[in-house]
């Protein structure tokens, strides 16, 4: 029924040949509202949004504990209590401390390093799906969200590291020049975390059951990463391939790297360096590319 009307409209508009909307748009240089930017352009956009990413991370951290009476003190208390629980379980009750020297330091290093990756991945998986209203209201490169969540976890880690260093000193490990490499180790791990959480952010945005499943996966990962036990000792009887796979596991690699620096006081082996750098580069490239490929589809539903 619209046909006659539009004919009238056309006649009224001058009777010229009808011009399609697309042609009209092209004539005036209008572009489609939704188009994914190229990867370099996307990175530039992301760079201009760095202030938002940092502020968003800090704000989330501030608001996270604003309801509790102890407030920001929880940033220190949480890692401390975590370490205490694991020490009670594995050090005292299960008696792992008999096999490993300075078990508290060994355990806490493992817990803190692993928790950093675990929390970043879990929160990254939620970063898009729990910010749909923000995505539907404002324009920004969507990778800002998983990045902000990763930065937030890094800020939390700063407190954990303080606790960790204090505990290491309490257990009478000396301060060595190797400590200068701690930022390097954390930087590599952070890069890996960013890549992994970008990857999981896309998965979590489209596969809604991810958030239910992820805790089980990360817990399995936790038990496989030598947080409570020494992989080299425990797996002495296992086939070489399996041992190799366990030690190539990124979480285990970053944990061992940190233990080398803090506890064993030795320069990490070349193998450890290669593993840590490989995982950082690999995760960042794959995670970024994978996330960017769906940029225009986030927030659709």
């Amino acid at each position: 029924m619209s046909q006659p009307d539009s004919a009238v409209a056309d006649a009224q508009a001058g009777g010229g040949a009808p011009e399609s909307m697309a042609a009209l748009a092209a004539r005036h240089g209008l572009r489609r509202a939704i188009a994914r930017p190229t990867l370099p352009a996307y990175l530039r956009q992301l760079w201009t949004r760095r202030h938002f990413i940092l502020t968003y991370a800090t704000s989330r951290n501030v608001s996270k504990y604003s309801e509790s009476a102890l407030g920001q003190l929880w940033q220190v208390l949480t890692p401390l209590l975590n370490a205490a629980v694991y020490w009670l379980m594995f050090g005292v009750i299960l008696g792992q401390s008999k096999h490993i020297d300075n078990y508290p330091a060994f355990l806490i290093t493992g817990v803190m390093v692993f928790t950093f990756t675990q929390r970043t991945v879990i929160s990254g998986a939620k970063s898009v799906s729990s910010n749909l209203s923000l995505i539907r209201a404002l324009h920004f490169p969507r990778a800002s969200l998983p990045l902000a969540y990763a930065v937030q976890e890094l800020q939390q880690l700063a407190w954990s590291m303080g606790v960790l260093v204090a505990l290491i000193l309490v257990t009478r490990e000396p301060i060595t020049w190797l400590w200068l490499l701690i930022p390097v180790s954390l930087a590599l791990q952070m890069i890996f975390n960013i890549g992994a959480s970008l990857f999981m952010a896309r998965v979590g945005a489209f596969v809604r059951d991810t958030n239910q499943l992820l805790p089980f996966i990360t817990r399995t990962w936790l038990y496989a990463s030598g947080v409570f036990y020494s992989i080299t000792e425990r797996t002495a009887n296992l086939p070489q391939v399996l041992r190799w796979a366990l030690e190539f596991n990124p979480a285990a690699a970053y944990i061992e790297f940190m233990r080398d620096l803090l506890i064993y006081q030795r320069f990490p082996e070349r193998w450890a360096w290669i593993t840590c750098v490989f995982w950082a580069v690999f995760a960042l490239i794959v995670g970024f590319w994978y996330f960017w490929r769906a940029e225009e589809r986030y927030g659709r539903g």
Partner: protein
Amino acid sequence: MAELTKESSHVAQEESPAPKPPKTPKPSETPAPPAQELGTPTVIVDNLHIVYKVYGAATDAQKGNAANALMRVLRRQGRPQMKEVHAVKGVSFVARHGEAIGIVGRNGSGKSTLLRAIAGLLPPHKGAVYTDGQPSLLGVNAALMKELTGERNIVLGCYAMGMSPNELREKYDEIVDFSGIGEFVQFPMSTYSSGMGARLRFAISSAKTHDVLLIDEALATGDREFKKRSQKRIKQMRESAGTVFLVAHNLDVIEETCSRVIWLHKGKIKMDGDPTEVLAAYNKA
């Protein structure tokens, strides 16, 4: 459908997806103010369809227990909670430079969805939206956190809209002044009255200049004095922006600020034209 007037030609009929002869938009069928020359197009919406997926919208009969859910998985049926909502069904129009377009319609008629699609925030299911520059939605609410102080929220909101630290420093005092919340800026937003919160949100989101501006129910709250101030602000923005889209339930606001009104009904354009004419018809419906 009986009320469909000649303006229904704007509605792309779903039953006839065949390319119907497109027409020059804003035809002279509406007695537009003669003073208004046809500006260059800034937003072209071409037979736009938006389909939402909604989760957790099951009716009571569809809700089941874990066993039912398992059976559904085994039978490879979709989740009943996942519903598709066809929110915008074939809308076409051209917006031009200098226009302020009001969008009216009942709740759920697709007004906000249409705005988000123009902003490029919702991908079209079918059809396309062509824009000049980057239309921005005047809505920073989603980025703000009520546990944080007004100060922090201003910083957060400005960065979320893509301001640089320099722009933020320039605008900060202006935002605080315009919102008129005074020393409350140092308290968490959760302690604000609803009017104060709305004022601060409007002050933050209107601090940035835009090419094409989309306003969704920004003027619903606030006292009379603030309403006046925000209307003035919108007029200024309209002058600098080029094209303004305004969604509001308050028809007075639309009549005062808009030069053209689009009436959406169930995802389709029911009427498009001069404010007094469209609003009169809308009020009768």
